[in-house]
């Protein structure tokens, strides 16, 4: 048992843990390796979004899932782009809301219109604080520009924009390492299931002051 509340917010909770070190071990099967390799090799250039749209998505992603400099960056906007380019749908949308990709284009246009009206610039050019203010109002359903059409901004935030961004970030091994998740687990699953039990192939969590020893353990997680 660790008193994780004492750990400063910025500090690594699973120092030295890299879920990718398990890649060749018995927790990953061949089909999983293929899927993750594909994900890690996604290009930086958008295929679905235009260059301008992509700039906005990148700026939004930086506010919804701000990344720490300590771990390798996650190309969130590119992952969202890839999903939309593939045409993968969630499988449902509210009456009045277009299909997933069209909803994105509409929402980005509306957000830029809001940014221009409120602060006189495009969303991606605004200071972080102003970007956050707009996103907060979108989440609260307070944006009213005519560009939204029949799509409610609050639903666009929750069910499309922030959802796709959050799902993209937590599809990436960097995020898995950060939160100490075991990652892929087939064919080898887990054996120790009870409170405070850790299989040797799971990340150890740092308490206060034991960072060096935890880092040593995590370096050997395979």
């Amino acid at each position, binding site marked *: 048992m*660790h008193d994780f509340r004492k750990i400063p917010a910025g500090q690594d909770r699973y120092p030295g843990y890299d879920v990718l070190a398990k890649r060749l071990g018995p927790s990953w099967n061949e089909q*999983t390796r293929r899927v993750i390799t594909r994900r890690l090799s996604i290009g930086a250039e958008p295929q679905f979004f235009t260059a301008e749209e992509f700039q906005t998505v990148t700026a939004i992603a930086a506010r919804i899932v701000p990344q720490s400099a300590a771990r390798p960056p996650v190309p969130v906007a590119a992952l969202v782009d890839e999903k939309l380019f593939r045409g993968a749908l*969630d499988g*449902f949308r509210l009456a009045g809301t277009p299909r997933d990709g069209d909803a994105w284009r509409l929402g980005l246009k509306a957000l830029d219109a809001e940014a221009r009206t409120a602060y006189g610039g495009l969303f991606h050019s605004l200071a972080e604080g102003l970007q956050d203010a707009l996103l907060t109002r979108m989440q609260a359903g307070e944006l009213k520009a005519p560009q939204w059409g029949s799509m409610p901004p609050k639903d666009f935030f929750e069910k499309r924009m922030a959802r796709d961004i959050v799902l993209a970030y937590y599809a990436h091994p960097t995020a898995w390492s950060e939160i100490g998740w075991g990652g892929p687990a087939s064919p080898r699953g*887990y054996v120790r299931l009870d409170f*405070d039990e850790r299989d040797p192939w799971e990340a150890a969590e740092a308490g206060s002051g034991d960072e060096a020893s935890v880092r040593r353990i995590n370096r050997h997680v395979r």
Partner: protein
Amino acid sequence: MREYGESEAVDFAIIGTGAGGGTLACKLAEHGFSVVAFDAGPYFRPLEDFASDESEQTKLYWTDDRIVDGANPLQMGSNNSGKAVGGSTVHFAMVSLRFRPEWFKSRSLLGYGADWPLNWREMWDYYREVEQALKIAGPVSYPWGPHRPRYPYRAHPLNAAARALAKGCEAMGIQWTETPLATLSAPRGLAHPCVYRGFCVTGCSTNAKQSALVTWIPRAIAAGTEIRDLAMVGRIELDNAGLVTGVHYHRDGAWHFQRARNVVVAGYAIETPRLLLNSANRKFPDGLANSSGLVGKNLMAQSNQAVWGVMDHEVRSYKGPPSLAITEHWNYEDKGKDFFGGYSYMSQGPLPQLWADTQMSAHGLWGSRLMAEMKNYNHVVGLKIVGEMLPQEANRVTLTDELDQYGLRIPRITYSWCDNDKRLIDHSLRFMTQALRAADARDLWTQDDDTCHLNGTARMGSDAANSVVDADCRSWDIPNLWICDGSIFPTVGGVNPSLTIQAIACRTADRIKALALRGELEAHAFG
């Protein structure tokens, strides 16, 4: 696998191979009928096709376009239906529960909903058959309801999340037990026991999960069923006498027609009414089997609210099937309720993507607050209900004028909670908050918007005026058209539905055989 020609009229064309259709295909073939079972989804081989990855496995879900509205629009996709041979059981959570007996007569015995035309004692035997077929792993004795036989396989061990549920129940003075689960706790044939990898709702890559795909479907094929995958049925055809003659289906880029003496619709509670409505013709302008006007109506989800918190202990709830412990206390105890119906609640084990989306959409977190909260992932503990929602005609599936990739009209799904639904949810959130606090969790918050499972939309009953099918799942209007899936539920109860769907499919197969032997059925097998 045996294959049938399109011009060869088979005894049964079954649309959908999930809990209802997969089970029925197996049992009918074993009774000697010729069967072709269609599924719009692919026939997956889990050992080769399933990755250990949430995103990749969205390939299991029904993600064709659907419109949702109403005061409480439903979340579909990953949350609700599958598109694969084996149906939604390929990614279901394996919780395998029996109805409380009184629920089959909830109108006359408990004062709400509608009575089923089925007898619980008969259902008790069919539940037994399904529990045996799936080698359900469950507790030695079950705390609630009339006696039931021992589960075929021993219960799974508890993970920390399940222990927290147990601790909360004990503090609140109510009973709990290990959840009866459709995943192996000991080897079965070539299949290994569950290895507690925790990816169950994204598909089990080890075949420990006893889905329809690995249980009923292989048996169905062995008994002579043809499984036609990647085949989307778009319309059911009728002759001038008003009898069904076969189905039009889309496969390999073209439309085909399969002749059949009987057609069974088993596409689950959205696609079943959609197909019946899309099959409207001159004789049945309001859709097939719809003289009661009830096709598509009385859609029932189940409430799926949760209380979440964190513990000082490491919980790591991603290990093992998500719901290893359960209490059905509030399904069986009626004292102290200000609502009709019941609920069970279970321990939880969300994987990172699902958990982050929950924190964002239900808890409202993003930015640095989301990132900070996600770092507590390994300490999270939660309790989630499966709650009964009441049938309301206004909750329904209709057709829009927009078309899907096959050129078929897409469904609109309208859903609003009634006051009783809200009272049940409030009761459960109050109770689970106390229970989770008693288990030493803190920073509690409630997720109050979720639903799961779909039922209703083609209810069974004992009167043609207020139901779509009879007790044998035969439509009142068209004697060789049947419906056998979650659609036929008149009420949903507070337990996950798949065991009941499978039990009814087993019963339906036995009834069909009996009817055939009496000459009351169009079929070759006993003709």
